[in-house]
Structure formats: structure tokens, C-alpha cells
């Protein structure tokens, strides 16, 4: 039951509509924002509070096969962070990989109302959607992993670009994905088939698939832009985490030319130095390239100190990280299309590399000239839990606080960055951009990230406070699709949220090409592969514009 509401007297931060802290009433009816309501609204006095669109997480890992493996893996992490239920809400557990219910409620308690799972294998799509059904409050969708899909690589090898595009679109439809995700494109075959080796340079052709990572990247950028998906290919570059990888990152961006592309957790891809040796910061080179190329959006993948969980389709990377501590580790190969690696992790202030990663993330935020194209993320839970967002916001908004925090970390690492020279402080308006308006625009979600008439009534209202961490930690009100979910910091009702996906057009005859491959090399039947509509709960198709 959605309500007719008047949010009265708040300071409104709606950067998409050029509203920066103006006092303004917001009206809500039928789950949407309206100019003037047709009925008498329930008036909520929000004067002295900051009113923002609901937060949008463009890159996190919250549902699907690898997330659930990571959950199963860590009872010790859940035990310390129980999430009690209420009469309205289900119980769960937290930790760095919370249960589905806790994930949804906790996003809501930070004022986030949309989150995109950034990596689901096609065969695991049904699983991800089932988890989404149990992930309350937030709207959600996922990016489907296609960058190591053997059938698609075969099409590329044979130069069948047209069919490639149709096949990509078929896969998006079959899995009900939002866009394509490339993770370490072309890197699975070396990992699975060549005694755990990895991709070096992106022009190197695998001797099995005979296609280079650059060809894969180029083809996806081409196909997805031609299909007109609301969000371009979402790319996790090759060589994540390795010293000297900024070069791979630059090459990946150059491959795009002036075509749209999103680079995921770019912090992990901004390292200088020699491979195999300690990294240095290359954030300046990366930031400069991004600043001067308006076709590029990125999210940061900020590292936050404390417990995290590495979970990535970049299995080779997880294996490398496992080498440091030899503690529990998961690798899961997915036939013909993907795989993942998982390990519990902890970022520590005194460790050079961890401190450097933390500093590089902050550098990227502070060096970025266009807040619309750099999105706040921790690559949850890889760089740390999304529950760290309020602290990260304070690090960006509060120079003095940042200085104190800088003093606590490995100084050798700090000295190798520009961090001490960067005095910039983000404004509330800029925070509203990097956490809401920007990611919504990058995702092509026209009804999100702003509060103009017709927008989804996803709204968060914070008490204005000096301590921005405290402020962003506890919104007083959260409205989701017009429902007052949190009122005076308390959950008032449960709500499922919507599932967001796309339906790009394609030539149906492509199925005749996919099917024989499938029958030979997959272990389930082709007709049981695509996710049917019965799995969709409340959902919305976001239009493609080819």
C-alpha cells in the first residue's frame, strides 16, 4: 500500500534537477514523485533535514551462487553480527556477506534503495533472482558474466560480429540480466585449462580460444552499444591487483575509443610498479584519462580497513591472494562460461599494500573532476562491506577527519601517493551525485537518482549533522516506491522491491547456433537453461535504445 505523502520543509539535494540544498516540499503519490498530489497527503515535517533520492549502488556482490558460497563459508563472521527480526521484518545475519534479508534491510538503513549485483554467471541467474526475491526493500538487478563465454569467443574467433551481438542479446534475455559484465576477459581458459596460469597483456591470444582479451573487450563494447542497453559493458579489467596494471587499464579504456564503457572498482586497477613487486600509485594517470574522456564512467572500489571477503569471477586473482595466508579458499569453475574465487580477507592499516590501496581509492575520488562519472563503491564485500559507506563519505567530506585517519596508516604507503596534498572536500551535493544521481544516470535509470515529477519515490531523509558518518549511518526516513519503510529510524513495514532487467532485441534464429554448442558442452538441457517469467516478482524492464 503506497501512501500519499508530503515531505515538508526539508533541504533538498537533487543534483539532476539542479537543486542544491533548497528548501522545498516533495509530494509522493502512487509510488511516484508528483508536482501536486490529487488527494490530501499525509504531511511529514522534515525541516532541518537533508532530503535526497535513495542511494544507488552500481557495483556490489549481494546475490547468486558465489555470494551464497561465501555466506556458507563464514559462520564465524555471521556469529558476531546477528540481525534480529521484528514483527515486520525477517531475521538474518550480518558480517561481510550478510544473509539476503539482512542485506536488504541494511542497505535501507543507510538510505540505499537500489543495488546492482555485479557478476552472475548465466547458469546461476535463476539462483540470483531467487535470492533477490528474499532481498527486501531495495530494487535490484544483475550484470551477467559473458566475458569468458566460450561460445561467444568462438563467434569472435570466426569474425561473426553480427551473430555475436544477437547471441549477447539472447543471453541477456535468457538470464534476465541488466547488462553484460566482463571479468578478466579471456582469462578463464588460462586458469582452468593451463595449470592455473593467467593473462599477461591484453593483446596476447589464448592458444585455446585464439582470441585476445582486447578483441573480447572491443566486441562487447561494440555489441552492447549497438543494442542500446541502458548501461554499457561493465568491465573488470585484466590483471586486477597486480603491480603495474594501470597500463592494462589504460589500454582497456583506449579500446573503447569514444564509446560508452563502465570500469568497475578502478582503484584495484590503478597500480604502478613492477609486476611481482610492491605496487605504487598510478591514480593520477588513470584519473587524467577518465577526466578527459566523457564516455567513461567508473566506480572506485574503495578499500576500507577491517574484515572483507574477496569474491570474484577472477578466480586466478583469488588464488594469488590465497597464497599469502593459505587459509580457507574457494574456487568454483562454471562450465563454458565462468567461475569464481572466494576467500575471507582483512585490510590492515599497518600493511603497506593495504594502506596504499586505501590511499589510491581516496586519490581517485579527490582527483576526479566530474562527480557524475565516478561512483562511490567498495566493491562490496571485496574492498569492505557496504556498511562502510557512511565512513567513506566522511573521509571525502571532512578534510580534518581524513588527515587524522591518514596518520593511522602505513606512512611509507601514504608517502607514495598524493593524498597529503589533496585538500578537496566533497559537498553534500557532490555526495548526492556520487551515491545517487551519478550511478542512476550511468545505469540509464531515468526514474531514479532524482526527485523530479515522475521519478520513483525512493527517498532518504537524513538529520543534518556535523559528523557526516553519523548522519549517513542513520536516515530518519526512508521511502521506497512511495512506501514509508523507515520512520524515525524504525522499520514500519516489509517490502520486496523490484527486479530490474533489460530485453534487448535480437534475431531469434541465433538460438539455432547456440543450441548445438549447448547440447555438446553443457550439462543441463538447453530448454531448461533460460529463466522463465515465473521467477519474476515485481519487476521493471528498463528500455534499450538501439
Amino acid at each position, binding site marked *: 500500500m503506497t501512501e500519499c505523502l508530503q515531505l515538508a520543509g526539508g533541504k533538498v539535494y537533487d543534483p539532476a534537477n539542479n537543486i542544491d540544498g533548497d528548501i522545498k516540499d516533495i509530494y509522493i503519490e502512487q509510488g511516484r514523485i508528483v508536482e501536486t498530489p490529487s488527494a490530501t497527503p499525509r504531511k511529514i515535517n522534515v525541516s532541518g533535514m537533508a532530503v535526497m533520492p535513495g542511494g544507488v549502488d552500481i557495483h556490489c556482490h549481494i546475490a547468486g551462487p558465489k555470494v551464497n558460497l561465501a555466506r556458507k*563459508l*563464514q*559462520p*564465524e*563472521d555471521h*556469529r558476531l553480527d546477528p540481525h534480529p527480526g521484528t514483527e515486520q521484518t525477517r531475521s538474518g545475519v550480518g558480517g561481510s556477506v550478510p544473509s539476503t534479508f539482512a542485506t536488504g534491510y541494511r542497505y535501507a538503513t543507510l538510505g540505499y534503495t537500489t543495488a546492482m549485483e555485479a557478476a552472475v554467471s548465466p547458469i546461476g541467474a535463476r539462483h540470483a533472482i531467487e535470492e533477490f526475491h528474499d532481498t527486501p526493500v531495495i530494487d535490484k538487478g544483475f550484470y551477467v558474466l559473458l566475458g569468458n563465454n566460450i561460445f561467444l569467443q568462438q563467434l569472435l574467433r570466426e569474425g561473426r560480429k553480427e551473430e555475436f551481438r544477437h547471441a549477447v542479446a539472447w543471453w541477456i534475455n535468457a538470464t534476465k540480466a541488466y547488462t553484460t559484465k566482463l571479468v578478466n576477459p579471456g582469462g578463464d581458459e588460462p586458469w582452468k585449462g593451463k595449470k592455473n596460469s593467467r593473462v599477461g597483456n591484453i593483446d596476447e591470444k589464448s592458444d585455446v580460444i585464439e582470441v585476445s582479451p582486447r578483441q573480447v573487450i572491443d566486441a562487447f563494447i561494440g555489441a552492447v552499444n549497438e543494442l542500446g542497453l541502458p548501461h554499457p559493458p561493465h568491465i573488470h579489467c585484466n590483471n586486477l591487483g597486480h603491480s603495474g596494471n594501470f597500463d592494462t587499464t589504460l589500454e582497456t579504456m583506449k579500446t573503447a575509443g569514444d564509446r560508452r564503457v563502465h570500469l568497475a572498482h578502478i582503484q584495484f586497477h590503478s597500480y604502478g610498479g613492477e609486476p611481482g613487486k610492491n605496487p605504487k600509485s598510478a591514480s593520477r594517470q588513470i584519473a587524467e584519462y577518465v577526466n578527459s574522456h566523457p564516455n567513461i564512467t567508473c566506480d572506485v572500489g574503495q578499500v576500507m580497513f577491517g574484515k572483507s571477503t574477496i569474491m570474484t569471477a577472477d578466480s586466478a586473482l583469488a588464488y594469488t591472494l590465497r597464497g599469502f595466508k593459505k*587459509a*580457507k579458499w574457494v574456487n568454483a569453475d562454471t562450465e563454458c562460461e565462468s567461475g569464481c574465487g572466494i576467500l575471507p580477507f582483512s585490510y590492515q592499516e599497518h600493511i603497506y599494500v593495504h594502506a596504499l590501496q586505501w590511499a589510491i581509492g581516496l586519490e581517485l575520488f579527490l582527483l576526479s573532476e566530474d562527480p557524475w562519472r565516478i561512483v562511490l563503491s567498495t566493491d562490496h564485500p571485496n574492498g569492505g562491506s557496504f556498511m562502510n559507506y557512511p565512513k567513506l563519505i566522511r573521509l571525502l567530506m571532512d578534510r580534518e577527519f581524513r588527515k587524522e585517519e591518514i596518520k593511522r596508516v602505513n606512512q611509507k604507503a601514504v608517502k607514495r601517493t598524493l593524498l597529503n596534498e589533496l585538500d578537496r572536500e566533497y559537498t553534500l551535493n557532490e555526495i548526492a551525485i556520487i551515491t545517487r544521481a551519478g550511478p542512476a544516470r550511468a545505469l540509464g535509470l531515468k526514474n531514479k537518482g532524482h526527485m523530479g515529477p515522475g521519478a520513483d519515490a525512493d527517498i532518504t531523509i537524513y538529520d543534518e549533522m556535523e559528523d557526516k558518518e553519523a548522519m549517513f549511518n542513520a536516515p530518519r526516513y526512508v521511502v521506497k516506491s512511495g512506501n514509508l519503510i523507515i520512520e524515525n529510524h524504525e522499520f514500519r513495514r516489509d517490502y520486496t522491491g523490484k527486479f530490474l532487467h533489460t530485453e534487448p532485441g535480437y534475431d531469434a534464429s541465433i538460438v539455432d547456433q547456440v543450441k548445438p554448442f549447448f547440447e555438446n558442452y553443457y550439462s543441463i538441457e538447453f530448454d531448461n537453461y533460460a529463466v522463465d517469467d515465473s521467477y519474476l516478482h515485481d519487476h521493471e524492464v528498463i528500455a534499450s535504445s538501439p
Partner: protein
Amino acid sequence: MPLLLKQIAPPEVPLEADNITPDRITGQTPAGVEKLTVMHGNETRRIGDFFRVTGQYDGVINLQGDHLGRVKFIGARMSRGVIRVDGDVGEHLGAGMSGGAILISGNAADWVGPEMSGGRIEIRGNAGHMTGSAYRGADMGMTGGEIIIHGNARNEVGNAMRNGLIAIAGNSGDFTGVNMLAGSIFVSGELGIRTGAGMKRGSVISLKDAELLPTFDYSCTYQPGYLTLYFRYLTGLGLEIDDERVRGPYKRYCGDSVEMNRGEILLYSG
């Protein structure tokens, strides 16, 4: 005068009583203590529903009753004072405790002193499985303190223990000292099978011979000097060790070769 909790009603289902610790009852009157909550299955009840509380806390809490074996989490996370139980106790005794002492006249169920970091637990009877161990999934069990069992203990004594001492006058079960990182385990009686599997460092000492895993390597038979001191300390804790066994000799095995091979198992071979 200790604070006396006398059990007046047997619980119908397990009782979780993590409020029964010196840390929680300090400064409370007996009536105040009776008002503290316990979980009786899924209902929240009061200590007074199950115990009559008398006396005054003078550093010691005394529990008496015939059905204490269904009371879990006694002394969990305690940091000081003494809990004396006349009878048996349920699971998770002294879980995560950091100081103080717990004395049990009867038997204890599974999980005695899991992940404890300090203090002492002494059990006159037997203990269940997983004494001084890690909980599932965790990479570290007991990190300090002492557990003395006068009877037998069962499987996984000291699983992933990092520091401290576990002494067992009777037998231990399988996987004693499994995944041990450091610390000492002493067993007077028989060891179960697969002692020290996956141990990185630490010592397991037994007064009986035992069959060890194929990844433990015999290094020598000797009379380690430090054992005299060690045994004197154990006798001080009330364990009986005769002079012959104090003298040795002991067979020393090192392992686990699957791990770092820096742990040791000493078996009496007089």
C-alpha cells in the same frame, strides 16, 4: 558469603543462562539477580523462575541443583570472580571467558571454554567434545587460560588452540590438538586417534603410548628438562603424576608434516 543460586525447577527445554556471571551480577541484590533474564528455549524468562537466589556475592557464585546439565553458557564471557557449580553443567561453559575461575563438581557437556582467552576452568568429572576449541569456521580456538579436566574429555580437545593449557587426567577422544597453532595439551590417560592432525606448533604430552598419524616423525627418546617444571605445575593444579613419569623418558614426535612440522607430541615410554 557466596551468592547461592539453587535450582528450584527443572527447565523443560534447554536454558541459556549467559547472565550467570560475576560480571553481570556484581552490585545486584538477590532479588535483582532473580530478575535477570534467561532464555528458556524461545521464551525470555527470569533467573528467579528457575533458581532461588540467596546470599551475597563476595567474589563467588555458587550454583546447586540436579538439572544444571540443561543450563548452557554458564560463565560465558566472564572476566573475573568465581563460579562454583555443585552438579553437572550444559554446553558452552565459560565460552569466550577472559578471566576468573569456574569449578564444576560434576560433568560438563560439549564446548567447555571455547575460544576462551584467560581464566581457569576446572571440571571434576568428564567433559564433552570440543573442549577449548574453536567454533565451526573459526581459525582460532582457545587463546589463553587453563582448562583442567579430572575425568575424560572427548573429541577435538583444543581444536585450533593458539595458547594456554588444557590438562586431562583421564582419556581424550579423537583429534586431540587438531589444527593446533600453539599452547599445551596434557593427557594422563589414553589419547584417541589422529592426535595433532594439522597442528602447526604446540605440544601434546601423554603418559601413555599412542598410535600417531603417518605424518608425525619420530625424532628421539629423551628426558626433557622442562617437563619437571611443567609437571610440578600440573600437580599443583591437583593432577596426580608419579615420579617415574616425571622423570621419563619420552618419545618425541614432530609434525604435522602436512603443515609446518613444528608441533611436538611427547609420549611416555618408560
